[in-house]
Structure formats: C-alpha cells, structure tokens
C-alpha cells in the first residue's frame, strides 16, 4: 500500500515537471528571438543566421523540443547563450545563496506568523490581538520592494548599522531575510489565528479544560496540532516558492541568488538558463508537496488512513 502511494506521487510529480518544462519552452520561443536580442542591432543577417544554427534555433519547433527533452533525459540542460557554460552549472552555483536567504525568510515567516497567530487567538479581542492583526495586515499589504527600500534608507543610510546590499556576512542577511519573511508572516498569522479560533471552540477543547489539563498543555498538545493542518498547506506553498520567490527581494538587495539570475536570464532570452530554473522551481514544488502530504498524515490520523485505504 505504501509503495503504490509513493509510486503514484512520483508519477504525478514527473508529469508536473514535464508540463512545466514544456510550458517554459513554448512561451520563451514564441515571445522573441534570443539571437537578435543578444547581438548588436547592426549585425549582418548572415551572422545572425550562423548563430541561430549554432544554438539549433533554425530547426522546427517540434524538433527543437524533442532534442531538448532528449538532452534533459541524458542530463544535458543546454548551454547558456551568455557565457557558453553549461546552464546547470550557471544555475546551481546560485542555489546556495538563494537557499540561505530563502530558509532565513521562511523561518521568519513561520516563527513570527505562527507565533503571532496563536497569541492573537488566545488573547482574542484584547489589545494584543489587535496589535498582532494590525502587524499582520501591515506585513501582508506592504509591497516588499517598498519595504526593502525603506529598510535600506533607515538601517543602511540613516543609522548605518547594516550593509545595504550584497552578501558575505550575517549582517548582510538580516534585511533581505526580514523583508522576505515579514510579508508571509502576515498571512500566516491570519491563517493561524482563524484556524486556532475554530479549534479552540471545539467541544474537545472544553473537554480538555473540564478534565483539568493545564492551559499550556491544552494549547500545545490539543489546539495547535489540530489548527496546524490548514496552516501547513499555506506554509508548504511558501516553502515550495523558496527558490523562485525571492526575485524582487534579491534584486533590491543585490543578493546574488537564483531570483536575480532569473531576471537577467529572461531579459536576455537566455533560454537554457531560464528553462533550467523553471525545472528547478517545479522540482522543489513537487518535493515540498510530497513533504506536506507526509506531514498531513502525521498531523491528522484520519488523512493517513484515507491515504492507505485508497492507495
């Protein structure tokens, strides 16, 4: 039963990857010619034609597609038009930086968001609740490019306590991570709060109180795990977006990650690089979704059982 559950997940994941690659492939080919964009305006037509041949862009679309997918299956992700290196290398060397920033932002999103949501639900209707939800709306509605620039103005220009851009130390990480994390924290806080309120009003919470459990135990053992289920869904989506999600923030803070690479690669029609990033993003999404399914089973015994019965 467990094996067939896994198999169906893997198959579904592969289909998702293929669709993502195909979509990126088509959109990029249809939306402009990379060669004319790459070369100066006054390049003679015969030279343009030579370059098109080198990159295989003179062939028909189906043929290009089959060659590309065939290459992927052999581990060949194509070459970057810009510097001629393998696209996979170009992308992978950016991944560690993006993961550092993405993980830091995700931790801020989860810890601040869930914490604020739980406290707001427990203190419903009090000034604490009001403050937490005010913060949530602020974080949710503040565009992160604006928030990032305001942070730079305050912490880097006015008070000169943090570096404005770049990477290299923990101090460099603070502002981009906070900017990245705070927007997500707002929506997570609201989700957590409403989910917690719903659970807190369940009769089994009344039971827990009537049987004399301490408040901390009621909240940590009975309320939070039951309230976590919808929150995990949203957190999973955010975790899946870690690789691609920081496009704006990486640009604002000149953080040398995948997001920044994606912006330049799209602008320059660096087909192989864009496709590799899309594939990487789709892969993380698939993996995270799988992870979320596993966590569901652990959080909710009803779902674990349903999964086993149908699979």
């Amino acid at each position: 039963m467990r094996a067939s559950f896994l198999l169906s997940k893997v198959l579904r994941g592969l289909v998702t990857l293929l669709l993502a690659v195909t979509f990126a492939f088509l959109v990029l080919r249809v939306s402009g010619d990379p060669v004319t964009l790459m070369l100066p305006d006054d390049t003679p037509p015969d030279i343009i034609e030579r370059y098109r041949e080198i990159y295989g862009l003179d062939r028909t679309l189906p043929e290009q597609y089959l060659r590309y997918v065939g290459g992927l299956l052999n581990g060949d992700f194509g070459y970057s038009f810009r510097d001629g290196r393998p696209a996979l290398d170009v992308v992978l060397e950016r991944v560690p930086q993006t993961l550092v920033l993405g993980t830091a932002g995700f931790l801020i999103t989860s810890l601040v968001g869930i914490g604020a949501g739980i406290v707001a639900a427990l203190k419903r209707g009090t000034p604490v609740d009001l403050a937490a939800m005010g913060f949530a709306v602020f974080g949710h509605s503040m565009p992160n490019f604006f928030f990032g620039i305001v942070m730079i103005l305050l912490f880097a220009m006015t008070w000169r306590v943090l570096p404005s851009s770049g990477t290299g130390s923990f101090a460099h990480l603070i502002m981009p991570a906070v900017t990245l994390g705070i927007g997500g924290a707002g929506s997570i806080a609201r989700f957590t709060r409403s989910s917690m309120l719903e659970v807190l009003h369940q009769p089994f919470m009344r039971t827990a109180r009537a049987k004399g459990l301490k408040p901390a135990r009621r909240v940590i053992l009975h309320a939070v795990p039951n309230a976590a289920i919808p929150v995990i869904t949203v957190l999973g989506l955010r975790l899946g977006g870690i690789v691609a999600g920081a496009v704006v923030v990486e640009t604002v803070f000149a953080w040398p990650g995948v997001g920044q690479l994606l912006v330049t690669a799209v602008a320059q029609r660096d087909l192989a690089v864009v496709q590799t990033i899309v594939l990487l993003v789709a892969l993380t999404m698939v993996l995270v979704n799988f992870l979320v399914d596993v966590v569901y089973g652990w959080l909710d015994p009803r779902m674990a059982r349903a999964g086993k019965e149908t699979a």
Partner: protein
Amino acid sequence: MSGGELVLTDIVRLYGGGWFGRHAPVRAVDGVSLRLEPGKTLGIVGESGSGKSTLGRIAAGIEVPTSGRVLLNGKPYAPMGSAAWRRERASIQVIWQDPSRALDPRMPIGGQIEEAMAAHRMLDRAGRLARVGELLELVGLGGLGHRYVHQLSGGQQQRAVIARALSLAPQIVVCDEAVSALDVSVQAQIINLLNDLKARFAISYLFISHDLGVVRHISDSVAVMREGRIVETGDAQAVFSAPRHPYTKALLAAVPAATPAERRAREALSRMETA
C-alpha cells in the same frame, strides 16, 4: 469513589444585555435551587432554551453563575482556571452530547484517558496504562485504546467519553444530553452502562435531557425547568405519573404514545378534559 453531594442555591445566570444595557439581559437561569444527593441521579428536563445546559455547566463548575452558590460536599468551587480549580475537576466530570467532537481527533482514545489521569498525578505511567485498559474493558471497549475517534461508532465514542470521565474517579458526573446524539438501541445500552456504573461506584449523576423517557428510566428524582426556573420537582415516579404543574403535563403529553391504544386513551382523556 463515593457519591458527592452537590447543593445549588439561588443560582442566577444572565447573558448579554448589550453595551450600556440597551437590551434586557437574558435570564438563562433564574433563581434555581437544587440538591443532588450522594449516589442518586437527579434528572433535569425541559425544552430547549429552558436553561438546563447552562445550569449543568454551572453545577460542573466550568461556568460561573451571576449570583448564587454552588457547594460540592459543603465547599464552594475555587476561582475558575486556578490550580485548585483544576484539581477539583477530578471530583466532578461532564459527559457532553456529541461524543465525536468531545474527543481530540488526533489522539488515540487511550491516550486521552491516560492524559486526564496524568494531569491529576494519579498513579505512575505503568499504573495509568493498566487503569486505562481496565476502564476500557469496563465500558466494553477492551483492547481498543489505540483507536482514534473516527475509527469508533457513535456508541463506542460515547463509551470512550464515559471511560475518560470515570478515569478520574469522580463523585459526580454531569450528563448533558449524554445520549441524545445516539440512536435508540444504543441509547439504551449507554443508559444501562451508566446505571451499572452508578451502582458499582456510587456516583451521583446530574442527568440533563429533553427526552422524558430517558430521564424517567434513569432518575431517582426530577426537576422540570422552564425559562430558567424550576416549575416542579420531586420523586421521579411521582412527577411522571401525577404531574402537578401544567407545563409538566404539557411536556408529558408531547411525548409520542408508544402504542395506538395508549394514544386513543390519551385522546379520550383530553376530550373529557375539554368537554
């Protein structure tokens, strides 16, 4: 375990009233005095909205009355939420209407029973686990402690709730519509179980229900509630066979007759009364 005595005096519970008293507050419970004797079952009947559930929560100490006194074995409850109040929970337990929602869906039922005992530092872990096994056996769920709520039938769920309530060796159990969510054959099983347990452990029940048949079957004495007040009280058999208050008579008349013969007899009676 021996039954406890619960005395309620002049209980009033108001709800709402709006800001600055724009609306008159609802008098959910309006001057009720009751005495639950050790080892006895006191039935509370009344239509929905008559304040019987509010009274039950006040009696169990999980809601504070606007005014009036609740004495458990001669002592008032500690302030709600305090450590002393939590310790008192062991002596008075509640069984609610919907068993499927009264248990945490994420924790096996055995764990939830054990947890209650752990919260009151009863026995050591091995002793508690053995006790969980005994309790489940007692309510007819032997060996099902590892199950989750959704893996039990409605009747089994309510048995699990009862085992959980009993695990703390309470003197008093408040049953608030404890069998209303179950179908009739299961109701009978649960009521017989409650009666067995009462005889065995000398528990006192405050049995709240809108179902007169059930209350009649289980109660030693009965109080009839209407709009927050008690309109009639007395020995269960006496109240049911010779109701004095018109509201009690109306309630009894509303119970569907068990046989056509009984229905015809009732109709004849009401024709005589109106004639």
